[in-house]
């Protein structure tokens, strides 16, 4: 049931529908920029899944709330972040903390997390899922109202098996037997005491900086998908969906079905992508979805071997330039979605001491066990292979965490999924041109407004961080980490608490 409720944005009242995120409600009301960068540029949501922190605002008086992770509520106040006043009227009160005891703590409630939770709970373990979003499903099954068909059986199974869910919490610190979590809404800290941890934090989009990518209205490809599923109307809108990978087609399909006019811009060449034909032929379960996808995209303008070179606009993206084999094209747009594939989200794993490989993936054995006793990892953070793979890996992790041995058929399936994931990756190699789009004056670190020219001469990550402040902001480097400029820097970063920047642990109670 959707009701009309009243929220207050920077003092002005706004009527919005319930059951949607604050980001979505603001965008529907035409507010795409919610904050200003250190140099004063307007900024709005980029990833719409809690990674970029660009959508943060002061919500109900709490600083640093990621508005994409919080649903609107009656009477909610949303304010642009202002400097904290030097006077402190009232008393600082630390929120009451609680301890939750559970056998298995599952971090993330996407396919891997849900499957892991179901498997462990059905084998008699008490299970608690910790997830940043308001509801279960993760990025791929993000929804508004009722979950998508694929997700429903898992959510139902988890419910029947008695899985507890801590929705709206980030894991910010801890050790394998005790996780510290913080509410994304008000900063309340709790402890989760557990005997094993299954990390199912998935992946986030890879963003490659280009001129204009910081303009409000430029979002990730997956972000657009989430926003539309979350209720953002796109009917009649001109949208460019660009970047690389099969996600672009899925996003385009969704946008077209909602009435948008979509142009798809894929950087990979037709030749590269045709390499997918053989793995596809070997994978009958993917024939039908592939055909449906293809049919639904009839009439969509599509460019391959093409990429976005610049976005322009005042306060909001209005125009996009794309480089095609036929030359530069300039399109008038209402929005731009760009995503260059996925990169693993492995900060929690790193914080818990798990081994991370050079591409950022968590190293696991055949049983999804990391090198840290009692810590398992399943899904995209171990390798990008899609939701079917994540489900099966989740089952393996859940079964193993319950002290059982997974069947060899299940393990064989996981191996096959990996093969498919690698094939997709190979069919979409990033071309050099898209890695070098940012000019010296373009921002590469959005949190701290570090420009490409500033770190051009840097050798090490340490230098880029300490001298130029790259990665020193709220997102902790999550957004720029995927860019080639950062990959070229020497050294690695240690993950220290907080593993995710959370709202403060205390609030000011005004004197009564």
């Amino acid at each position: 049931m959707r009701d009309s409720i009243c929220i207050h944005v920077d003092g002005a009242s706004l009527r919005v529908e319930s059951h949607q995120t604050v980001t979505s409600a603001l965008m529907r009301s035409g507010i795409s920029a919610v904050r200003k960068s250190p140099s004063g540029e307007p900024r709005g949501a980029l990833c719409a899944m809690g990674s970029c922190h660009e959508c943060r605002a002061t919500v109900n008086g709490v600083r640093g709330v990621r508005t994409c992770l919080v649903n609107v509520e009656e009477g909610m106040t949303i304010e642009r972040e202002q400097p904290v006043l030097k006077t402190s009227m009232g008393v600082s009160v630390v929120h009451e903390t609680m301890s939750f005891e559970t056998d298995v703590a599952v971090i993330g409630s996407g396919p891997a997390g849900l499957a892991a939770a179901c498997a462990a709970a059905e084998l008699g373990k008490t299970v608690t899922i910790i997830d940043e979003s308001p509801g279960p499903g993760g990025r791929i099954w993000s929804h508004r109202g009722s979950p998508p068909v694929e997700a429903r059986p898992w959510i139902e199974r988890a419910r029947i098996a008695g899985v507890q869910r801590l929705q709206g919490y980030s894991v910010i610190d801890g050790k394998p037997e005790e996780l510290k979590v913080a509410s994304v809404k008000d900063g309340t800290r709790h402890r989760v005491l557990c005997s094993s941890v299954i990390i199912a934090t998935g992946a986030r989009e890879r963003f490659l900086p280009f001129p204009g990518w910081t303009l409000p209205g430029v979002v990730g490809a997956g972000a657009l998908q989430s926003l539309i599923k979350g209720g953002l109307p796109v009917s009649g809108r001109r949208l460019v969906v660009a970047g690389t990978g099969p996600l672009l087609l899925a996003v385009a399909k969704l946008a077209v079905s909602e009435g948008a006019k979509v142009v798809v811009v894929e950087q990979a060449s037709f030749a590269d992508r045709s390499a997918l034909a053989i793995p596809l032929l070997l994978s009958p379960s993917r024939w039908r979805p592939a055909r449906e996808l293809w049919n639904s995209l009839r009439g969509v303008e599509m460019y391959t071997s093409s990429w976005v070179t610049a976005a322009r606009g005042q306060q909001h993206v209005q125009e996009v330039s794309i480089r095609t084999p036929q030359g530069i094209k300039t399109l008038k747009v209402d929005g731009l979605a760009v995503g260059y594939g996925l990169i693993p989200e492995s900060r929690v794993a790193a914080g818990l001491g798990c081994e991370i490989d050079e591409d950022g993936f968590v190293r696991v054995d055949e049983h999804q066990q990391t090198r840290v006793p009692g810590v398992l990892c399943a899904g995209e953070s171990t390798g990008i292979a899609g939701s079917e793979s994540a489900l099966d890996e989740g089952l393996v992790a859940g079964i193993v965490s319950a002290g059982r041995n997974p069947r060899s058929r299940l393990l064989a399936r996981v191996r096959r999924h990996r093969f498919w994931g690698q094939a997709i990756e190979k069919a979409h190699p990033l071309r050099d041109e898209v890695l070098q789009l940012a000019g010296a004056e373009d921002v590469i670190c959005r949190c701290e407004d570090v420009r490409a020219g500033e770190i051009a001469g840097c050798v090490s990550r340490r230098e880029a961080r300490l001298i130029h402040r790259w990665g020193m902001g709220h997102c902790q480097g999550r957004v720029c980490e995927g860019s080639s400029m950062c990959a070229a820097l020497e050294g690695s970063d240690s993950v220290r608490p907080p593993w995710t920047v959370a709202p403060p642990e205390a609030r000011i109670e005004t004197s009564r």
Partner: protein
Amino acid sequence: MAIPHFLVVGAGIVGAACARELAREGNRVTVIDSGPGAGLQGGTAAGMGHVVVNEGDPDTLKLCLRGRELWRSDAPPMSERDSYWETGTLWIAEDEETLLQLEGAQKKLESVGVVSERIDGRQLIKLEPALAPDLAGGLRVPHDGVIYAPTAAREFLNASPKVTCHFGVSVKNIGDGMVELTDGRIFEGEAVIVATGISVLTILGEAGARLAEKVSLYPREGHLAITARGTRILDHHIVEAGYQKAAHSTSNHSISNHSTSHHSTSHAGSKSGSVACAILPRQTDQLCLGSSRRPGEPGPVDPNMMMRVIDRCERFVPSVKTLPILRTWTGARAATSDGKPLLGPVPGLQRTWIAAGFEGLGITQAPAAAELIRQRIMGESCTLDPWPWDPARPYKNNSALTKRESDHA
């Protein structure tokens, strides 16, 4: 005539300051550092960046004061974000007894010509409304401030084309006036200045080991946190009075701790370490929250220690927990057994100098230490009496301490 050539090992704030001092006399300077660039390791990278004329013995006070003078008048050009910013230090007394100690501190400061101003509890709140309302009072030292040390180290080295840097290399051996790298390269110079912080005695090999029998150098770990932008609710560097006491309580050689009435600051000699409130505003509109001290190399962030630090900060700035924290980290200060830096020639060697062991005051004292090293090496008259810091001081009563310079009265 060949241009004299000097070698500096360590491109932290102290080594970099030494390099600049020697280069500005027209000398050629080669800087060697194991890190990826200047100021990216050790205390320079991990420290808060405060420039504080600290209460302590008169010699330390003078070195701090000269350091501060030079930061104010002679810092290398830097962006506004990184340059010296005079926040002033506000030493805060929690209770009347500590306030009395601050009066003593003020007299000491006065004796070396440092201006300070006593502040009562009520004025304190006017000056810094975010402070707790029940604090007894404080002492304001106006010209103290903050510098961004990694950039400062870098700019010290950029200041002269006569400085050549070799980064990412490790030292195999240091001889008298000679440095041999593990990659086989050998550098020779008029003198070598070794400024590698905690590792300084190890890196000096035999000569270092001999010195280590007389004066030990050990790491003191500290925990720090930084808040998000937009949270600079303080204008001053806030330090609780008694910080010094807390600071030295982890040392076996420390001044004894007479007072027992202070609760959370003193855990004398314990392995669990001590914490004291030190909050430094930064030009990026953030607050750096500290600090802790415990013996040992910097380890991973210990959540309990971090919590103790922030709890202690909360005692003085009650709203501190309402500010989002972006990062936490640890670092180590290099402390000497007698609490004074080692600044001068290595006993037994003629052309090898040492500049280390500043224990948390390295950034404050770096320009003064570098000036002193230059003055002694070049045989100029010294601005400050160099003997309190001479590495040969433990040999005071035997012949090893021969005044090679008769320049200083």
